[in-house]
């Protein structure tokens, strides 16, 4: 029943999305408002239909409908309720449906909110968003259907999965299906996996809205700043979720993958990072278009590039192109996804070229000064794009080109990223510090120097302090230098503005700061984001350059020493968890200066032959004492423990939190809706019929 319900809703959603695209295109070509209303209605109904499908699958997971092949493959009789829920995105078919459902949610919201405000853009917005939604529903229906069920051929005993009942086949015995059900991949049985994929998906799918508005602006030739104003919050929301997804992904890797790190430059990790980089460039450069009417082509390139990277990341993760801990198994959706990505990217690039040739994308002002804010913003954008290109090259470009030209596969190791990315990140942090101090139009070097003087002095003082206390590594000092500078500039800007308010309005400092944040949340929210990125940067530098590690086999009562920490092995506990995994838990005590500071329980979880090391961690702002149980010998009760000291690693998570707060502040701005757009002159006699607002 649930399979039939989910499948029929999915088919109806596919029909509705195709109708929405067709009606929107027809409405745009004929200026017929009734067709546009039809397009809107078809687009809006897609979300409830996909909701029915998604919840039907969720209900099937919760109620153990093992005849459904998806439920059978991602849950078993021992799966706890929480992981039955997360199993919704535990494998390709369910995750694809979940992804499409989230995308339809964004489209639903964007159409309803913007319907009356941007009537000229609506046909294009509906056409581009719903074409994307229709494509993904099509993948779910035809290639990765989560509502397929197992069917038994009573003659041969063969079992096949099919969405509709194949002729002559019967339902297999339920108890056999239940007993053989596979269960969720152990790597996904972690708290981080409850939140990380949805956040990442929300970030990915959210960029469909600014992309569609940009394409709609080009299609309608309405290339004023309307599309940028319309999509500012959508872009920030998508960026926020993508940031959250990346941070949580790092945390999951740190907790579950058992190698003491959080970012391994894995191609699939990188694939998710690429749209973030371009999206970050976009949310900065749109400010220049809003304020100065510049960078019109550049902004289109960035948002189209961002969405193109979203599609590419999805293709890379889901097609089996790259084997990774993050990727799904090899799938037939690879070719259609590649073609869709190529088509979207190609059409978008062509549209930009055409509109540019028509002279519709001319900037209102030329670049006049190399130190102006717009120039520094562009420079920072160029750094983001350069990072995107070099990471893309290392992850996909070099391996693919090598295979095509030499026939030998090449993989690019972490050494590549360690050489290529640090100089660009240093430049990025430096510009992050300098650009906010520059003015639009013209800035002299002297004025910029005066503005940066105090933050630079405080940075120099901080570096001197670090050097005196033992941080003498030049790479670390350069890294800390630019990172602290960016953070101090953010704080300095808030301080300076608050001081000015105190002088002019007689307000106290807290009141002045509050007033600043309430009056210009976008600007000051941005500074909070910069502060968050600074804190993340400090954490990354500390944990990368100063990680210490040792290993040793220990018998009960023996100790392991690293820096001023001592790890004492107290004994072993063997246990079976509720979900039947066998746990081998080492009881260890962490001492510092002879004083006990923590008791940790690193463990190995054995899921019927598939083992995972779960670290024991003692976390402070200063560092993480991270302990892995690598081996246990039953005969001697000895264990092999790996001990890592990861300095400042927790700043990465705290910085992420600050970044989220800043983004929420920045996107919570006063309504900047432009005056209602005049509707385009309509050729049809049925002007204005049925237009809702």
């Amino acid at each position: 029943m649930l399979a039939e319900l989910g499948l029929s809703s999915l088919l109806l959603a596919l029909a509705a999305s195709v109708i929405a695209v067709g009606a929107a295109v027809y409405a745009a070509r004929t200026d017929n408002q009734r067709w546009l209303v039809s397009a809107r209605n078809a687009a809006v109904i897609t979300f409830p239909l996909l909701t029915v499908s998604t919840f039907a699958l969720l209900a099937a997971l919760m109620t153990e409908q093992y005849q459904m092949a998806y439920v059978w493959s991602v849950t078993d009789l021992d799966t706890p309720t929480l992981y039955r829920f997360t199993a919704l995105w535990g494998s390709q078919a369910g995750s694809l449906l979940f992804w499409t459902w989230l995308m339809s949610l964004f489209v639903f919201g964007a159409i309803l909110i913007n319907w009356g405000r941007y009537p000229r853009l609506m046909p294009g917005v509906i056409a581009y968003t719903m074409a994307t939604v229709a494509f993904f529903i099509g993948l779910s229906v035809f290639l990765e259907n989560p509502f397929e069920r197992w069917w038994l051929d009573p003659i041969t005993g063969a079992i096949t999965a099919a969405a509709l009942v194949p002729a002559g086949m019967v339902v297999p015995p339920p108890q056999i299906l239940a007993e053989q059900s596979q269960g969720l991949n152990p790597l996904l049985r972690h708290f981080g996996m409850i939140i990380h994929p949805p956040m990442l998906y929300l970030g990915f799918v959210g960029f469909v809205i600014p992309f569609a508005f940009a394409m709609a602006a080009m299609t309608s030739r309405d290339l004023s700043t309307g599309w940028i104003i319309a999509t500012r919050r959508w872009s920030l929301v998508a960026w926020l979720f993508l940031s959250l997804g990346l941070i949580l992904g790092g945390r999951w890797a740190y907790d579950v993958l058992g190698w003491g790190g959080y970012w391994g430059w894995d191609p699939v990790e990188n694939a998710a990072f690429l749209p973030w980089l371009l999206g970050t460039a976009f949310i900065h450069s749109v400010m220049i278009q809003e304020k100065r009417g510049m960078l019109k082509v550049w902004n289109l390139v960035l948002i189209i590039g961002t969405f193109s990277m979203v599609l590419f990341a999805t293709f890379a993760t889901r097609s089996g192109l790259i084997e990774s801990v993050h990727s799904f198994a090899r799938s037939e959706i690879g070719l259609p996804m590649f073609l869709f990505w190529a088509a979207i990217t190609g059409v978008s690039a062509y549209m930009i070229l055409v509109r540019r040739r028509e002279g519709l994308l001319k900037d209102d002002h030329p670049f006049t000064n190399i130190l102006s804010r717009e120039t520094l913003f562009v420079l920072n954008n160029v750094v983001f794009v350069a990072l995107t290109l070099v990471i893309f090259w290392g992850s996909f470009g070099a391996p693919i080109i090598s295979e095509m030209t030499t026939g030998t596969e090449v993989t690019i190791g972490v050494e590549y990223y360690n050489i290529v990315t640090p100089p660009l990140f240093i430049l990025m942090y430096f510009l992050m510090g300098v650009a906010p101090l520059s003015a639009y139009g013209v800035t002299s070097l002297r004025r910029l120097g005066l503005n940066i003087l105090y933050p630079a002095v405080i940075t120099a003082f901080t570096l001197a302090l670090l050097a005196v206390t033992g941080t003498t590594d030049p790479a670390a000092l350069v890294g800390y230098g630019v990172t602290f500078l960016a953070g101090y500039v953010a704080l300095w800007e808030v301080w300076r503005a608050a001081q000015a308010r105190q002088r002019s309005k007689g307000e106290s400092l807290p009141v002045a700061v509050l007033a600043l944040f309430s009056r210009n949340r976008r600007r000051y929210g941005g500074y909070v984001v910069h502060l968050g990125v600074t804190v993340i940067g400090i954490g990354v530098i500390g944990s990368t350059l100063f990680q210490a590690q040792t290993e040793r086999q220990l018998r009960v009562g023996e100790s392991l020493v690293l820096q001023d920490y001592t790890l004492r092995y107290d004994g072993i506990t063997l246990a079976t968890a509720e979900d039947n995994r066998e746990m081998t838990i080492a009881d260890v005590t962490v001492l510092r200066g002879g004083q006990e500071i923590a008791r940790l329980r690193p463990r190995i979880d054995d899921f019927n032959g598939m083992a995972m090391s779960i670290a024991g961690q003692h976390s402070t702002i200063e560092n993480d004492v991270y302990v892995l149980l690598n081996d246990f010998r039953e005969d001697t009760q000895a264990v092999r423990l790996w001990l890592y000291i990861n300095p400042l690693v927790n700043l990465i998570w705290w910085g992420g939190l600050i970044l989220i707060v800043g983004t929420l502040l920045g996107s919570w701005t006063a309504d900047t809706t432009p005056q209602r757009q005049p509707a385009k002159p309509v050729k049809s006699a049925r002007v204005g019929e049925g237009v809702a607002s």
Partner: protein
Amino acid sequence: MARVTWEKTDAAKDFLAQGRQTERLKFLVGGVILLGLVLYLAFSGTLLGARFFITIDEVLNDPQFAGQTVRATGVVLGDTIVIDESSDTTIITFTVATFPENHPNLAEALHIGATDPNATLMQVRAVGQPKPELLRHEAQAIMTGTLGPDGVFLADELNFKCPSRFEGDAPVMGQQDHPGMERLDNAS
């Protein structure tokens, strides 16, 4: 009242145009420097980070890969695994056999590789790495490292892959689970 207008003189126009040209030149020079930096970084990084993903036979026999850090894959032979944990540093040694290429089923490919009497064998040694959870007989080893002069592959990085029960299979029905099979067996 007279209307006041202000027009730029030719000299002022020339001055502005000259200024713009200078700025344009600065942009151009800056752009070229940045592009050069990025290209240099990408090129030097690729040279250092690129690892040819080759077979065991190529590691052992192809002179172009001698002394190079490469990535290779093979099938682990279980009875050769030795993990020496007596010292402060774990030393892992094992032997791998050629991994059959282009086989659609991982479990079958691994079994074929492990039982092929004509397969090329290579000894692998890894020092100071955690004992991999998946190091076992008929696991696929993906190793990054260099072939030593003694013919032993010194692995800096070890990854293992085993056929997972969490991927891909379909349920299997025994005879007792479906009457049709029973009938067919009786008939034959």
